[in-house]
């Protein structure tokens, strides 16, 4: 482990005043990281001013709690700061996921707007006219090949464009579980489109 990282670990494990000081410095550092991460993603969340600052503050505070609880997991495979930044960034993602509904309060939970599907896959309207068969084939495959759960995830993520982290917050599932379910769904849809002659086997 590099000396700066070792210093962080020792200070955070300190039982005296050194601990409080290190926690304070950690929070300050992660607040800076959370703020710049929110700024980097500003195109996708529309937060600014005190609201942005509040979310950055919460993300930093929660990251500090996770880090101090998981110090023993740090094996020195990277600098301590890199490992710590990761917690702040994951907290930013998770909080933005939850924040989605306050930004889109009118989004109905059940609406299935299939008209949006071509757009989701980058089909411009003039192309869509010539690809109507393909869009119908995808919809048929979604209805015919996917399980009920896979279909629900597909509709939420692809048709409705709900961010994965929002779905995590809403369903209490994990990013990993939803990703894997979608991974299998993508394979099935691909196989259905190959079978229908819309896609080459290896294309």
């Amino acid at each position, binding site marked *: 482990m590099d000396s700066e990282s070792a210093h962080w670990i020792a200070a955070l494990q300190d039982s005296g005043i050194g601990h409080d000081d290190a926690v304070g410095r950690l929070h300050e550092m992660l607040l800076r*990281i959370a703020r*710049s*991460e929110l700024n*980097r*993603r500003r195109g996708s969340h529309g937060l600014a001013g005190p609201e942005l600052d509040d979310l950055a503050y919460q993300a930093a505070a929660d990251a500090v709690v996770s880090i101090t609880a998981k110090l023993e997991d740090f094996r020195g*495979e*990277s*600098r301590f*700061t*890199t*490992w710590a*930044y*990761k917690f702040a*960034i*994951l907290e*930013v*993602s998770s909080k933005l996921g939850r924040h989605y509904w306050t930004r889109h309060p009118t989004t109905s939970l059940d609406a299935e707007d299939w008209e949006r599907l071509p757009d*989701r*896959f*980058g*089909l411009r309207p003039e*192309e869509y006219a*010539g*690809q109507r068969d*393909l869009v119908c084939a*995808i919809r048929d495959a979604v209805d015919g090949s996917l399980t009920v759960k896979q279909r629900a995830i597909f509709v939420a993520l*692809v048709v409705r464009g709900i*961010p*994965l*982290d929002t779905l995590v917050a809403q369903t209490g599932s*994990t*990013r*990993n579980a939803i*990703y*894997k379910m979608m*991974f299998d769904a*993508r*394979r099935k*849809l*691909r196989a259905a*489109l190959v079978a229908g*002659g*819309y*896609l*080459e086997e290896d*294309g």
Partner: protein
Amino acid sequence: MTKPIPQQLRHFLQTDPDDVACDEAIRLLHVYAELVASDPGEAATRYPGVAAHLAACGPCGEDFDGLLAAITASEHDDS
């Protein structure tokens, strides 16, 4: 005759069997990000499954971009 499939749809349908999924990619994200910052080629060689996942998973890819930006900015601050 089949029409060409749009790139975005093709990308969506393409699954990489090496893809390690989110938990494993996030577990290694700090190690991988430092390696990418110093030697991107070596990172992809040593962790092909993480590279495959980050290319396919929007949220993990975004977290990786953020982490890489954070460590790159810190390096600039230090110098």
